């Protein structure tokens, strides 16, 4: 039975931007784990580091990419960890085990969210259409992440490089809407 398991994504079958200035790809089934805990608790920080191999980013609006994990600052006591598909299971277990007895929260949200990668010379223009965040390189650069809004959707966006490429994370049930919005927004840029 197991080999017939069909996975679906809300982005299945959706059209991509037609032109060459904006590219849009789904980062299918990326593992995602929400971690919450007290950043002032050194024990918490070190236990987490033991599992992740990198320090939790404590500077707002930054993320750190380690080997298996990319850890995004979400709020003063909240992080979003991305890992490869199905990597979330082991991660959740490892974190829960490591944090036993420390007040914290580890939640698998791999399917709560969908991540899409938006890139290309006109990517910024596309983002500017729906988000009030300042994406100018002076304000938002590779290495940064932020929660913001795109039209009606709440998104988390991180910039990966200067191409520019972005990972945009959105709730499953808003993903189709956001994707289609991006495609339509990209149309005029060819």
């Amino acid at each position, binding site marked *: 039975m197991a080999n017939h398991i069909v996975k679906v994504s809300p982005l299945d079958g959706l059209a991509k931007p037609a032109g060459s200035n904006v590219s849009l790809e789904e980062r299918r089934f990326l593992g995602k784990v929400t971690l919450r805990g007290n950043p002032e608790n050194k024990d918490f920080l070190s236990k987490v580091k033991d599992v992740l191999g990198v320090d939790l980013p404590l500077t*707002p609006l930054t993320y750190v990419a380690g080997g298996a994990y990319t850890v995004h600052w979400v*709020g003063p006591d909240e992080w979003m960890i991305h890992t490869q598909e199905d990597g979330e299971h082991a991660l959740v277990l490892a974190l829960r085990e490591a944090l036993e007895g420390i007040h914290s929260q580890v939640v698998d949200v791999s399917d709560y969210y969908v991540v899409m990668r938006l890139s290309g010379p006109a990517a910024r223009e596309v983002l500017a259409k729906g988000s009030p965040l300042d994406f100018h390189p002076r304000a938002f650069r590779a290495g940064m992440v*932020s*929660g913001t809004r795109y039209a009606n959707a709440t998104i988390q966006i991180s910039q990966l490089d200067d191409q520019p490429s972005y990972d945009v994370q959105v709730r499953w049930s808003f993903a189709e809407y956001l994707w289609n919005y991006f495609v339509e927004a990209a149309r005029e840029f060819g």
Partner: protein
Amino acid sequence: MLLIECPWCGERDQTEFTCHGEAHIVRPKNPDELTDEQWGDYVFFRSNPKGLHKERWVHDHGCRRWFNVVRHTHTDIVYGSYKPGEPAPEVSEEALKGGKK
């Protein structure tokens, strides 16, 4: 269209936030000891001032944190944000009069 400073994420467009009304309304510790008037006052009555107002905002589309803002309800000038539990920033007479932001 306000520009609100989230104590964590920095200045952001108003549309990333929601305002939840007057700040520092403390839930009574022993509700049963209150008269209907005192309880009603806590639940419904607000100072609603024309002037400086301390109010709660939440950064819904960002870090999802609640915090407080001091804003003048007539000029809509924001005089600062602070985290829950922190004291409100002082607003000098001069800043109020100058009214420039």
